[in-house]
């Protein structure tokens, strides 16, 4: 936030400001009066073009006798770089009284808040007053009322009784309307999710997606573990964005501990983040061919992905790049041989991937399937705060790597591809272009890799401090927020994955398309269930 914005905000809402602080360089925390919160959020969203990047509910009754809500905004909005030295993340926080566990919903003005508020209702028992769709979200109906797992007085070992109530699906009724229930158990190796289509003939009228079948209690568990063990948890939030999540976790704690990690560690982290993007994007492009029945393309894509994962294993010992990150840097260094191995493998991959694209993306039958299918409009993308590939394919120019540089992204030059069509084809093309950009980034970093240490020791972290850690994962921005507790533990760990914000966009994209195109549309988003269902 630039000073002009901040000054405007303070004059406009001076009566509501209780406190403001900048605990870490680019994050501004403003404590506001609860009754003014909606107004300030609207001002930030509508006037300043800020976007909601996360919303956290926290039980701080043991600390200050109330619940607390945090609204995280990214400033300025999409499309331009943040000027140097400005505070780019603005956080509004407000207290919610224990005796009146309610807050005013901001969803009617900012649709992007809808899932966060429902989640806070499920996990903390704070009621969003005025929420247009206050149904259960994270905890299904078989979870009894009155059990709120993220409250501090809820023991993580509690096994609540199973209850049963029906979830009210939105229904479309009328002559010839056909309901198609799909899942939660699927034919392929896919995570659980229930999709309810209402269709007339082949045309889809409405889709309701029901996720959260495997709530794992990750955030609760993180409050039990010491921060060194919490890292392993962060690495296992999901398989395919493992390194991004781990990096977000480490970056948040490094900010809190106020340590500077060695330059070489920054470089290596960036290299691994890009290697993660590479194997995901290459795999996703190949997987699109499974949706269109182009089996040869699918097989070739899988082959290339396998080569990249074998490269991961060769340089880090793990196909998913696990076990490399640690708070304070990296656990293993990259030898000169491995540096050369990466370069030579990538050169080979680049050639083969190019050849694959030349075949699959210019085939008329393939193009006919991809183009104009599953269009995500820029308006919907903006309203829901969609991130990553899906946002950039719909004309939202946002990329954390450029907008809020972390690790060594400010040391390299790269292009952020942008398309405006918003269809399946655009999302595939964004991935394809990013593959080549990733290879360029890795090559630049490997050419200028500084020597030196790869980590600094972090023994303990100060209590009751907080910071954001964020990465642009292959699916988009992963925003982690950590508040620490005494004994180097975490008080609250909020993980907001890219998939979590992008999932609500999928059911909005589908209506108007035909039923057999749904798998293809879904694959073009390729969202993760595990990241969403924490």
């Amino acid at each position, binding site marked *: 936030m630039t000073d002009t914005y901040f000054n405007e905000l303070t004059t406009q809402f001076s009566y509501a400001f209780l406190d403001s602080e900048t605990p870490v360089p680019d994050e501004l925390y403003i404590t506001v009066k609860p009754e003014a919160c909606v107004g300030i959020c609207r001002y930030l969203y509508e006037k300043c073009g800020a976007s909601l990047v996360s919303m956290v509910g926290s039980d701080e009754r043991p600390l200050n006798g109330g619940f607390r809500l945090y609204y995280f905004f990214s400033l300025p909005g999409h499309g331009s770089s943040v000027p140097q030295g400005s505070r780019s993340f603005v956080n509004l926080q407000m207290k919610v009284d224990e005796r009146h566990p309610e807050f005013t919903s901001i969803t009617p003005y900012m649709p992007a808040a809808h899932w966060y508020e429902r989640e806070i209702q499920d996990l903390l028992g704070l009621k969003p007053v005025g929420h247009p769709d206050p149904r259960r979200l994270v905890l299904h109906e078989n979870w009894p009322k009155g059990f709120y797992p993220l409250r501090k007085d809820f023991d993580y070992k509690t096994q609540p009784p199973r209850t049963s109530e029906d979830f009210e699906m939105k229904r479309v009724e009328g002559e010839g309307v056909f309901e*198609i229930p799909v899942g939660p158990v699927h034919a392929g190796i896919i995570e659980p999710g229930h999709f309810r289509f209402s269709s007339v003939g082949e045309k889809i009228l409405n889709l309701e997606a029901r996720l959260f079948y495997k709530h794992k209690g990750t955030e609760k568990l993180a409050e039990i573990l010491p921060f060194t063990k919490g890292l392993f948890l962060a690495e296992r939030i999901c398989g395919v964005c493992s390194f991004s999540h781990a990096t977000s976790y480490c970056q948040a704690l490094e900010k809190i501990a106020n340590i500077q990690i060695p330059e070489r560690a920054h470089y290596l982290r960036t290299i691994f983040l890009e290697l993660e993007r590479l194997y995901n994007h290459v795999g996703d492009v190949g997987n699109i061919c499974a949706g269109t*029945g182009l*089996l040869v393309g699918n*097989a070739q894509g899988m082959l290339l992905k396998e080569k990249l994962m074998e490269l991961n294993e060769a340089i880090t010992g793990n196909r998913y790049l696990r076990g490399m990150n640690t708070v304070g840097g990296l656990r293993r260094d990259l030898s000169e041989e491995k540096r050369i191995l990466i370069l030579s493998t990538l050169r080979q991959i680049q050639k083969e991937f190019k050849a694959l694209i030349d075949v699959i993306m210019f085939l008329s*039958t393939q193009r*006919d399937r991809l183009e104009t*299918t599953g269009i995500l409009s820029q308006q919907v993308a903006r309203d829901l705060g969609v991130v990553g590939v899906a946002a950039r394919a719909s004309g939202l120019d946002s990329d954390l790597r450029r907008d809020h540089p972390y690790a060594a992204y400010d040391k390299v030059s790269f292009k952020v591809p942008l398309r405006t069509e918003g269809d399946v084809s655009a999302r595939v093309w964004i991935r394809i272009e990013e593959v080549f950009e990733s290879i360029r980034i890795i090559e630049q970093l490997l050419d200028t890799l500084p020597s030196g240490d790869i980590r600094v020791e972090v023994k303990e972290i100060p209590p009751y401090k907080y910071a954001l850690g964020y990465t642009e994962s292959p699916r988009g921005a992963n925003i982690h927020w950590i508040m620490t507790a005494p004994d180097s533990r975490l008080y609250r760990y909020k993980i907001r994955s890219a998939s979590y914000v992008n999932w609500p966009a999928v059911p909005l994209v589908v209506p108007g398309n*035909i*039923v057999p195109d749904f*798998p293809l549309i879904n694959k073009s988003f390729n969202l993760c269930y595990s990241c969403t269902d924490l």
Partner: protein
Amino acid sequence: MILTKILLGLLQIVFLMALAPLVQGIIKKIKALFQSRRGPSIFQSYFDLIKFLKKDQVVSEQASWIFHITPYICMISVLTVGALVPVIGVSVPLGFAGDALVVVYLFAVMRFFMALAGLDTGSAFGGMASSREMMVASLAEPALLLSLFTLALTAGSLNLSGMVQKLADLKIAVISPSYLLVFVAFVMVVLAETGRIPVDNPTTHLELTMIHEGMILEYSGRYLALMEWSAWIKQLILFTLLANLFAPWEIHLLWYPPKILVLAILVACIESSVAKLRLFRIPDLLAVSTALSILALITLVLKGL
């Protein structure tokens, strides 16, 4: 005399039954090679059949007698067709029983019951697949009939063995513009009738996109064996028709396998080189097939005049 004919007819049926899984296995193998995979053995389809036959079956409580009878009807229809088409000889032992039209209609019976069975269990995927199958069928059937008619006009007979004989007698003169047009039209119909890419994807696990696989999704055990097997036999019969109608030379046991192998390779190549069509583009493909047949017919009539 009649007894020998019946015996020979039965032998032909057994021959088709025995060979059909192998053809399926070969197509799968070739597709696997295209995908840089080793792929299962070409005999895998036999092992699958044995496995299905040994397994228990689970039948939906909602299923009526239609669900139970359909596998047998499919098998019987397709075997009857098997007795009516010339396979490894021009003469058909039981050819007196029916001509090309009967072949088309027996396939229609098979499809009719399969679509009913898809609806019968009340599963969403079955119903969806049945409605798609009917859409495809309503377009594929006229295309198939038209191409057979064009050949019948050339040959002057609707009797399949008569047709093959006439075409064989023409020797090299059989290759005319209309003949080539019909060949292309016929290949398209065969792709649709056998549920192959670009019309249907036989290897998909995505229920929402299925046609043929969707209708048989509820089948298991012995019934599934019958459904799969009859589909493979139907495929072999269509290949046989293609081979004997469009390469009507050297029709005997020695030349039959290479002809079928060439067709299997052709189908595998087509399946490996195009993406599956968007559902509502399938009518376009079949319309092209019909149009080609009509063109062939016109060419033929003009030439005849």
